[in-house]
């Protein structure tokens, strides 16, 4: 079955179970956060409408929270709250706070002073004025705030999948990593529809007349609680160990799908971003993770790779892939790039990654130190501004290092100028940039080329998967034929997918291979 030709509808039908689960999770996540945001924001808004001198500070802080990029906010939450729904809800709640606090404040302070004076003069006490006059009259404005907060939260909740909280982001980010447009749309369209739907429903509420609004206001908390509980419906089936896989790994045949079909591995799984996955494993929040075999954090966090005894992970030898046109344009480029061929093996790469990921040295520094040590370093020559080589890289440390090494090699060995476009998201974004002549080359992995870009049929992958050379030959040939892109010589290391565990736990449970893991999970 070729996924490229599968329709979006087909994909959604095939994955309907997952889609429903993610949608329900998404709704739940949104409304738990919203419920707490209302519980916190409403009293805060009331408080600052009473004590106006605090209003600047409270609204200021809520405003600043709003400006923190969502990914960064999620990142801040992890050291405090770990991974999973807790940090996601906390982050979403902080985003939803500002519109709720601000609109409560504006709504209450906007009530006609004559009406407030009348209420006071009739002999109402402060609480009666709040409940009978101020809140009911401010309700349309407060509703507008809740409405804004809802739309924001539905949108930001897609990011929750980065930290193992689920939601429709799992499809979106999985799709980006896997170069699968249907998968992206299967997450993005329902997320957009949810936002539109909730916005519409709340707008209807806002337009109701005052009499009906009284009833609706009473039922709103109930509704919020019910929707919040959605999150807990798809409770994962239990198992002794907990696995965290990246969205990309979840959707790949050489990832979770392969683990299930070839090994029959059944493990409680959450989706998580690789940025926090290793640390989560180290902190015992996850037991098994899907990592890369050359990742520096493997060394930093004392994790071990489980042996792939049934050979489901194809080789991922790294090599620069380059447009044929660029090779013609920059005549000496191929020779320069091949200077690195065969120079970096697995342990060297792991060590380089360790220096950036864990020792927090800059990729430039690490690249330069490596070149100096390999005696490849040359000072930069004068650059000709008319011939600029554009280097791309994906959004993780290893690629940054490689991009820097290549940049220094080119500058040292030619008069070409270099511009680096690092951080091009996942495979799809990076490859599209190359295919559309936005960059000249970037380091790619044979396995990724085979499975994610070429999406080779199962028959081909089964035939090739054991032999690194065969995979390289196949992708080199197919890329040339289909995309006019050339694979240069491999750099040397194999950054394959791998399952990893904490060294201590693996030794204690005597798990060395994936089959061992399966056996352990099946014993009671």
């Amino acid at each position: 079955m070729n996924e490229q030709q599968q329709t979006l509808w087909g994909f959604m039908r095939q994955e309907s179970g997952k889609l429903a689960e993610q949608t329900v999770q998404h709704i739940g996540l949104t409304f738990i956060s919203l419920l707490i945001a209302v519980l916190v924001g409403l009293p805060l808004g009331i408080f600052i409408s009473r004590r106006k001198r605090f209003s600047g500070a409270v609204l200021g802080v809520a405003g600043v929270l709003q400006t923190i990029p969502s990914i960064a906010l999620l990142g801040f939450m992890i050291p405090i709250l770990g991974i999973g729904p807790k940090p996601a809800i906390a982050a979403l709640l902080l985003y939803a706070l500002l519109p709720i606090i601000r609109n409560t404040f504006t709504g209450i302070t906007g009530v006609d002073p004559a009406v407030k004076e009348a209420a006071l003069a009739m002999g109402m006490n402060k609480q009666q004025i709040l409940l009978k006059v101020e809140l009911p009259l401010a309700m349309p404005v407060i509703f507008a705030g809740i409405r804004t907060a809802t739309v924001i939260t539905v949108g930001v909740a897609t990011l929750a999948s980065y930290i193992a909280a689920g939601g429709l982001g799992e499809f979106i980010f999985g799709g980006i990593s896997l170069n699968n447009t249907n998968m992206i749309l299967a997450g993005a369209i329902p997320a957009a529809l949810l936002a539109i739907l909730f916005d519409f429903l709340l707008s209807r509420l806002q337009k109701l007349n005052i009499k009906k609004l009284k009833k609706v206001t009473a039922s709103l908390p109930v509704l919020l609680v019910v929707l919040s509980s959605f999150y807990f419906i798809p409770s994962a089936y239990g198992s002794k160990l907990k696995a965290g896989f990246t969205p990309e790994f979840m959707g790949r045949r050489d990832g979770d799908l392969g683990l299930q079909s070839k090994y029959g591995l059944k493990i409680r799984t959450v989706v998580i971003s690789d940025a926090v996955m290793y640390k989560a494993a180290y902190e015992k929040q996850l037991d098994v993770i899907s990592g890369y075999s050359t990742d520096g954090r493997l060394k930093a966090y004392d994790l071990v790779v489980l042996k792939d005894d049934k050979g489901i992970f194809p080789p991922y030898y790294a090599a620069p892939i380059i447009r044929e046109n660029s090779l013609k344009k920059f005549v000496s480029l191929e020779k320069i790039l091949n200077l690195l061929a065969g120079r970096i093996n697995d342990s060297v790469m792991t060590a380089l990654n360790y220096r950036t990921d864990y020792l927090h040295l800059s990729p430039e520094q690490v690249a330069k130190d490596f070149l100096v040590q390999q005696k490849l370093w040359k000072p930069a020559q004068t650059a000709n501004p008319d011939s600029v080589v554009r280097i791309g890289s994906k959004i993780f440390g290893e690629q940054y290092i490689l991009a820097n090494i290549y940049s220094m090699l080119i500058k040292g060995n030619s008069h070409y100028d270099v511009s680096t476009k690092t951080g091009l998201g996942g495979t799809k974004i990076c490859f599209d940039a190359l295919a559309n002549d936005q960059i000249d080359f970037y380091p790619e992995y044979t396995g990724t080329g085979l499975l994610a870009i070429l999406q080779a049929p199962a028959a081909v992958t089964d035939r090739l998967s054991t032999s690194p050379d065969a995979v390289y030959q196949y992708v080199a040939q197919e890329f040339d034929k289909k995309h006019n892109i050339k694979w240069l010589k491999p750099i040397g290391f194999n950054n394959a997918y791998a399952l990893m565990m904490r060294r201590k736990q693996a030794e204690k449970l005597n798990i060395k291979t994936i089959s061992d893991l399966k056996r352990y999970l099946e014993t009671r």
Partner: protein
Amino acid sequence: MIKVQQLSKHFCDVKAVDEISFEVAEHENLILLGTSGSGKTTMLKMINRLIEPTGGKIEIEGKNIMDQQPEILRRGIGYVLQNNGLFPHYTVAENIAVVPQLLKWDKKKTEKRVGELLEKLHLSKDHLHAYPNELSGGQQQRVGLARALVADPAVLLMDEPFGALDNVTRSKIHAEFKALDELKRKTIIMVTHDVQEAFELGDRICLMDQGRIVQNGTPAELLFKPKNKFVKDFLKEQRLNLEFKSVKLSDVWQWLARQTAKGDVVLSADLSLWAGMEHFRFKEKDVVNIRHGGINEMRSAGFEQLMSAFYQYKKQQSHE
């Protein structure tokens, strides 16, 4: 009934109300008259403690209002605001029933009282379930009045209650206001800047300026025995009109003809000269009969006789 002693209110350095003292007798209608900034509204709001005084004392029926819980105090004092201050999210019935609800009246009693007031204030029962924004300005003001009267408080405070109404509606409501029996049993303090209104509705007028009372007296006293130039100037523009309105037929009794005329129109001597003159103009009568209820006597007057009597009265006032 209400006794205000040396009451002051300072906003920072501004003395909005500066050591004011006055008394209001039971069932009296006192008007606080003055330009904006004269301190009249501040004065009024201190009586139900919407504003707390800087110094001085207010007693209602011998009790110091500062000794009472403000909410309890306010539930016993009716309050009417200039822009009615009705709750836009409450129906007319709910608006009127605010204080009964706070006083925890039972539903039947509240309904009965609301219906009664609606009738007295010439509001239709159809309005009960309408919202304030569906009513005209005059109707809204009547609902505001009903809300203030519903718990039958002994004291009624009114802050420019007819200020937002057009002239036609206002004079209509003035007439109703004077005729309303509920109000005759109330001690009323009303704030206004409208001289006409003050003279028409007030038993007594406190003319205020810069936080002090310039003169406290009946309308006639203000007109004919002004304390100083300020009072004179304040009333100058509408003087003749006010004089006709504040002099009663009984005041000029001694200059009226003793014989009775033909015709069936008999006016009460309690009416103002202005009201008496209206009968000449609209009923086209040359002579009207006037009955003085107090001494049970009947006299009559034509338009010219009335004018001459008024002139005599004024002359006498200025000589005193």
